[in-house]
Structure formats: structure tokens, C-alpha cells
């Protein structure tokens, strides 16, 4: 009885979780113009339309560039700050830590509105640059927190040994600290890319002509339901899952003992 209930609950909740994704993917293969039952496919025409859509492909490229660059900046800034706060005694370090984490607790909408207000006043036009600056703001706390938590004593000793052997601080960072933190660095970078790639409201308020993918998809929604939106959504899903599986098999694979 308990066992049956357990499996029934699992089946029910997994169906709930999968339902929208299943519907999304199924009707991306719809042959007619509306992604609602009855299913009239399978057809690949909407995928062809997606791949032939210049605006959409440009937005995809923009998203990729913004995600990669802003994540790289967030990772470097986060790494240096984490190194300083984990290794040195700094006056006001509690306050600094709090400040670096703070953007995590504020809604993206508020961060976006603040940046928009300031950028308006200094004359920085809505652009991919403005969006990228915003994405560093949201990802820096994440990178900092992950790397700060990962800096342990074992690492400290290796750094000290290198320093005793006469390595300069830059060499220590580059040859000892960074390589020893490879896994958490990869995790932080990957998470940042994911968040930036999928971020909507900052990109929506801070771009105008060159937009990112979520903003482009948003403007597609205004013309109503279309299998084309299903197709681009399914493509994004497919790519994300592939990257995830690849990472799971390489970087995040736990060494078997």
C-alpha cells in the first residue's frame, strides 16, 4: 500500500513536471499553423523556418556572446575577490563579503531598473554592452560564493609551498590556485553562462536593436501561438541538455575509487 502510493505520487508529479516540455516538443513538429491538438505532423518545416530566420539567429549569437563574456568577467572578478578574502586579513572583510553577495538577494527587475536609470543619465544607450554589465552584476555573487566556499586549507598549503620556493603572486594564482579550483571554476562559469543565456528582464530593459534570444522569443509571443516558437524552444532545450550531458561525462564526473 505504502509502496504503491509512493510510486503513484512519483508518476503523478513527474507527469506534471514533464507535461509542458512534452507538449512543447511534440507540437514543434506540427504541420499546421497552430501548436494545439490535433497533432498533424510530424514535419520539420518550423525548424527550417527557425534556422532561416536571420533575426532569431542573430539573437542567438548575441546571447552566446553576452553569456560567454559576462561570465568570464564575473568568474575572474569573483576568483580574485574570493582569493583575497579567503587568504588575507582585510579590514571590513565581513562588509565586503556582504556587498559582493548582496545582488543575489535583489530581484533582477530592480537591478535592471536601477541600471537603466543610471545608464539613461550618463547617456549609455541600451545595448549588448549594457546588458553584459548587468549580467556580471547578477553572476558575480554566484562565482564569488562558489569559489570562496571551495578555497580550503589544502590549497593554502600548496600556495604557501610555491611562495616559499620563490614563485611570484601572479604565478601562484595562475599555476597553483586556479588549476586546483578547476572543478568549482567550471561549475561557476557554467552556471553563470546558463543564467545569462536565459536572463530576460535585464536584457529586455537594457537592449534595443541588437537583442538577446529570450527577448527575441518574447517578441515572437506577441504574434500569438506558433509552432515556430515551439521549434526554437525545443532547439534551446536540446542544446542545453547536450551540453549538460557532455559536462556530466567530463568535468563533473566523480572519480571512481
Amino acid at each position, binding site marked *: 500500500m505504502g509502496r504503491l502510493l509512493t510510486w503513484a*505520487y*512519483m508518476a503523478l*508529479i*513527474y507527469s506534471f*513536471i514533464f*507535461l*509542458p*516540455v512534452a*507538449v*512543447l516538443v511534440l*507540437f514543434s513538429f506540427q504541420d499546421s499553423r*497552430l*501548436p*494545439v*491538438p*490535433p497533432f498533424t505532423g510530424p514535419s520539420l518545416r518550423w525548424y527550417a523556418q527557425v534556422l532561416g530566420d536571420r533575426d532569431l539567429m542573430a539573437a542567438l549569437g548575441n546571447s552566446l556572446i553576452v553569456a560567454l563574456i559576462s561570465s568570464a568577467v564575473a568568474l*575572474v*572578478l569573483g576568483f*580574485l*575577490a574570493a*582569493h*583575497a*578574502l579567503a*587568504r*588575507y*586579513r*582585510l*579590514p571590513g572583510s565581513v562588509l565586503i563579503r556582504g*556587498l*559582493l553577495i548582496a*545582488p543575489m*538577494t*535583489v*530581484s533582477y*527587475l*530592480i*537591478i535592471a*531598473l536601477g*541600471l537603466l*536609470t*543610471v545608464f539613461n543619465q550618463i547617456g549609455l544607450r541600451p545595448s549588448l554592452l549594457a546588458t553584459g554589465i*548587468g549580467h*556580471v*552584476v547578477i553572476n558575480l555573487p554566484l562565482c564569488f560564493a562558489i569559489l570562496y*566556499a571551495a578555497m580550503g586549507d589544502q590549497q593554502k598549503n600548496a600556495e604557501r609551498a610555491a611562495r616559499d620556493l620563490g614563485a611570484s*603572486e601572479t604565478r601562484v594564482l595562475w599555476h597553483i590556485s586556479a588549476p586546483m579550483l578547476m572543478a568549482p571554476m567550471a561549475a561557476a562559469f557554467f552556471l553563470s553562462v546558463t543564467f545569462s*543565456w*536565459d536572463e*530576460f528582464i535585464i536584457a529586455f530593459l537594457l537592449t534595443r536593436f541588437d537583442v538577446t*534570444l*529570450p527577448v527575441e*522569443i518574447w517578441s515572437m*509571443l506577441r504574434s500569438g*501561438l506558433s509552432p515556430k*516558437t515551439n521549434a526554437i*524552444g525545443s532547439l*534551446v*532545450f536540446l542544446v*542545453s541538455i547536450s551540453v*549538460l550531458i557532455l559536462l556530466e561525462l567530463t568535468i563533473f564526473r566523480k572519480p571512481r575509487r
Partner: protein
Amino acid sequence: MASIEQTERNRAAGFVAPALIWVLAFFVLPFAVMIGMSFARLEGRTIVHGLFSDNYVRFFSEPSLFKGLTVSLEITLIVTVISVLLAYPLAWIIAMRVPARYQRLALMLAVLPFWTSYVVRSYAWLLVLGQNGVINKALMGLGVIAEPLAIASTRTATVIGFVHFFVMLLTLTIYANLIQLSPNYARAAADLGASAFATFRHIILPLTLPGVVTGAFLTFVLCIGDYITPQILGGNSELTLPQLIMLQLGRRGDFPMASALSIVLMAVVTLAYLACARWLKLDRV
């Protein structure tokens, strides 16, 4: 000796400076400017800076604005409660009933839809819940209903879309908590004659409560600040605070009012934080 300490300190300051400057310039400063903006006033299309309380007075006196807060709070509370109630059993089943080597797989499947884009996920629910969507077609095909149910563009649709997202998130956080518990507690309780329910009620639940509160707080913060889900699924039937903020920006470029509403949103989140601060583990990063 002192000089070595001095150089060390300078070096550390050099390392932390870029990140700190970024946060000060692009987070703290904009926030301060926004607070100032919330006390400005829109006359025609020009923003007059000053120390006016107009926006806040309007917020509390105009029902159309104040209702945004109550709507947001209601939706967020409903979503948080339902999500915890649905996610806890799932996390528990995965941690306690699923064989250890399948747990990672079960967990990854439970968060699979995370990997579609956020906008697309809300859109997908529209396909499910819409007038001629999957649910209505299925129910009508089965003869359960004669007329399609109006779910899309209602609060119900918003809540369903939110719950879907937060069940995934909470399953992760609660699972992480459950898996850290030593099985010895439950075993000891059982040895002492406690029923399965008593063990759960008096051992497991109290020990996982901090994790649940942390997850619930996260849900609260993300849910109350979200614009996409209510905009796509709820439509304009009733407006949440983020929808009102966007409306101020879009319609007349009313930055002062949008800023004031944002400060209200921040205040609510801060109050929620203070309310559950003693269970939260956020400061342990």
C-alpha cells in the same frame, strides 16, 4: 614585520578592488539613484527631482496600485505553500526510497524542464492550459466538460506556471537537506519504538526545517519579483507588482513611480527576510 603586513594588505585590496568597484558602480550606485528617483515627480513627460512623497502617497491611496501588492503577496504565498507541499514528498521519496545509484538520475529528471528557457516554459504552459490547449481538448474529448475551461489568463494559470518551476527548485534544496541526515537518527527512533510517522514528525521534519525555510524564502523572493510568468500566463486579468512596474516604464516612462514600486517590493522582501532570518543559512556562504 609591519611593512610585510602592509604589502600583503595592499595586495589583497588590489585583488578585491575590481569586484568591489563593479558592485559599487553597477549595483549600489544604481540602487541609491533609484531611491532618489522614487522621491522625484513626473510632470508631463519631465522628471522633476526633489523630495516629494507623491509616489508613495499615490501607492497607498490608489487602489489600482495598492492592489498590485496584495495580488503579488497572495500569489506568492499560495505558490510557496503549494510548492513546498508538493516538493517535500518527492524529495523524500528520492532520498529515502529510490536506490542510491538511481538518485542522481531521478533528481536530474525532476529538474529537466529547467533546461528550456524561462520564457519558453511559460509559453509551453499556455499551450497546455489555453482555450483549445491540450487539457481542454483532452477533457472535452473524454466528455468530462462541454465547454472549454478558461484557465489561461487567470490567476490559476500563473500559480500553475510558478508551482511547476518552484517544485523543481525546492525538490533540489530539500533533497540536499535530507541526504545529509544520518540514517542512524531514524534507526534509533525506530529501535525505540517510534512509528514511521512519529519518526518523520519528530526527527526528520525538524531536522530538515532550516532547509525548507531557506528554499521557501528563495521561492518567495524569486516569485514576488518575477514579471514573465504572470505576464504570459495571467495576462492582464490582475496585475502583480512587477507587472505594474513595467507598465509605469512602458506607458509614460514614469521612472519615479516605477522606482517607488520597486522600493516597496524591496521592502517586502526585506521584511520576509527578517521574518525567517533565524532559520536561514544564507550567511554561511
